């Protein structure tokens, strides 16, 4: 079986065409994330020029909230850390961070930093939802803007370490059950903050991660759950960061992802299901991390191509 790159490229291009079904209009709250997944996928497949950079940048800047400095998921939608990171990631992919002038950039930094709470965690917006995802989105956003500071980083690291559980892995907040996607946000945050050496119980964590692989080669997100292509990224990236990629069977995982590929383009959560751009991106990201099909190499910490992340100044800054 081969990777149907042309089909996947078409599939992604079609995502952003004229919406015709009601469903299309009802997913605007995910549009900025979808843009990151879609364009990220194109970059992994070496199809960087499918979209016009000016179109993309102008869409993103239409989602900038001049009052607070964050980005919403679509024009007129409220700013949130999740959409803010996606916006910055796509700008970074197109080497277009300068679309944010000095004032706007300053406001964006303010928006992110102001959402940090006393315990080092971040709320996603002003309404108080706390989640380790938001620590990651905040920290990576600041990393892309190259403005990480000890007064933000140190409490964030302390908070992340509090989220580690008896099984070595991480949950949504202290005391919450381990979940592979949360594990990624926590471990990658520690990596960006240059604090991986503060992580205890590494062996227990590595065993928990490698036990996510089930008999058909796919990975699940929690014990006794079904495998899902997106965990090809969430679990594998963690193992990549910990330099234990060989703790799962890469070839069997590749088979599972490839069996979830649709012959008309796109990848689904598991074989036989409907595709979506989220699983398409993270399926390709997993394949890239395993070095398959000549895909551009992906950075397990930033979930962006390494060619892009090598241009990001690393913390602590010299």
């Amino acid at each position, binding site marked *: 079986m081969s990777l149907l790159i042309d089909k996947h490229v078409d599939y992604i291009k079609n*995502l*952003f065409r004229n919406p015709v079904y009601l469903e299309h209009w009802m997913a605007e709250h995910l549009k900025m994330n979808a843009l990151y997944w879609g364009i990220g996928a194109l970059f992994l497949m070496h199809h960087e020029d499918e979209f016009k950079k000016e179109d993309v940048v102008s869409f993103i800047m239409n989602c900038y909230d001049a009052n607070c400095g964050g980005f919403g998921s679509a024009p007129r*939608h409220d700013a949130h850390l999740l959409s803010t990171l996606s916006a910055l990631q796509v700008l970074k992919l197109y080497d277009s961070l300068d679309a944010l002038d000095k004032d706007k950039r300053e406001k964006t930094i303010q928006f992110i930093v102001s959402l940090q709470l006393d315990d080092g965690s971040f709320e996603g917006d002003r309404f108080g939802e706390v989640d380790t995802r938001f620590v990651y989105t905040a920290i990576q956003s600041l990393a892309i803007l190259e403005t990480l500071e000890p007064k933000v980083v140190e409490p964030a690291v302390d908070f992340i370490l509090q989220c580690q559980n008896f099984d070595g892995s991480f949950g949504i907040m202290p005391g919450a059950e381990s979940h592979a996607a949360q594990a990624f946000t926590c471990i990658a945050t520690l990596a960006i903050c240059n604090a991986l050496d503060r992580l205890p119980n590494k062996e227990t964590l590595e065993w928990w991660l490698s036990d996510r692989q089930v008999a058909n080669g796919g990975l699940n997100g929690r014990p006794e*759950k079904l495998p899902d292509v997106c965990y090809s990224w969430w679990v594998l990236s963690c193992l990549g960061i910990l330099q234990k990629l060989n703790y799962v069977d890469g070839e069997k995982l590749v088979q599972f992802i490839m069996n979830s590929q649709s012959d008309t383009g796109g990848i689904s959560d598991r074989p036989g299901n409907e*595709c979506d751009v989220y699983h398409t991106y993270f399926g390709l990201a997993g394949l890239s991390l395993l070095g398959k099909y000549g895909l551009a190499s992906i950075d397990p910490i930033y979930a962006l191509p390494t060619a892009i992340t090598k241009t990001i100044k690393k913390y602590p800054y010299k």
Partner: protein
Amino acid sequence: MSQALQAFQRETGTFLDGYRTEEGILRMHGTKKSKHQTKQAILIRIKKDAAKISRYRRLSNEVLSRKEAHKYDDESFKLTTQLLDWNPEFYTIWNYRRDILTNFKFLAVSDSEEKHHLLVKELQYILLKLKSFPKCYWIWNHRKWCLKQDCRADFSVEMHFIGQFFEVDPRNYHAWGYRQFIVQCMKDSMGLEGERPKIDYQEFKFTTKMINKNISNYSAFHNRSNLVGKLFDQSPNCTDINETDVNLQRYLSAFSGKSKKQVLELELNMFQNAIYTDPDDSSVWIYARWLFGDYFLDDLTFNEGVTLINKANKIIEELAELEKEDNRGIDNQWCLKTQLYLLKQLYKLYKAEDDSGVNYPEDDAREFDKMRNRLLELDLMRAQRYKNLSLDN
């Protein structure tokens, strides 16, 4: 996506006018692939959807315009309900709804009782939404926000509500997180410090109930590990808690006496029941790794530790033999993995006694190598981690 639809889009599409979820941005996990659609079927659907789209877009525009004008009134509130009924994932609208509550609805109430009634109505609405979308972050978050606004909130109603969700899905990640939130609210609302361990004890009991109901509930095991730690720290007073179950009375007295040895012995019984109930379910096996980890062993004397590890090993050994007979000579991997871990923990105890580890039984060292080699053959997907494993590292 069907080729007919692709062709249709190539004819009509322009970049970034919209985005499509028919091919999906993030669909509900596990959506089965739909049948191939003809171009005609697609055109019929597009026609059918056109009227709905125009209503949906009109409503969205109306609500967003009101939001941008900072309009906080009953009519706007009603419109947010209508829009959220269409689309509960529209987080911006939940935000606007909260702003209407804060800047209009709450200002119109005369006392906390009236505010409570207002919020109870909101909670009823949220329940309705959650029943259709039990995994939507934004709805759960709105419920938490409402609870925080209500100084007369009835937490027992919330606990009952969570119970209903566990009936449908005992591993719902959001429901467990919400339970943790409510438990914290209950503790915060209590004046007396001494009352708090009671709540943790009730929660410990709840995990016992959930595990007895279904041994495969890893979420319950996870919570149990947290609660055990909390109960040791707080050592609740037995006489404060009316416990009629004999087995739970033993736990309670072990917590209050801060005896990790006793709790470990009791948990070993639970472990034995669990592994015999379903030897292939990973939940309790992962939990066992923690039971025989440093958290417990550090508090035990050398002899206590050795005795309990050997006892656990023997329990597993007996099951392993039965499993092998039942499965035509094939070993149960979880038995092997756990025994391997126990033997390593045992070595650690010997090493702590005498740095050379010279007293570690030779039989155990041989068993360790044997099991490790067996796993290298059996658990091929994870072979590398066994290669990296030795008694010493």
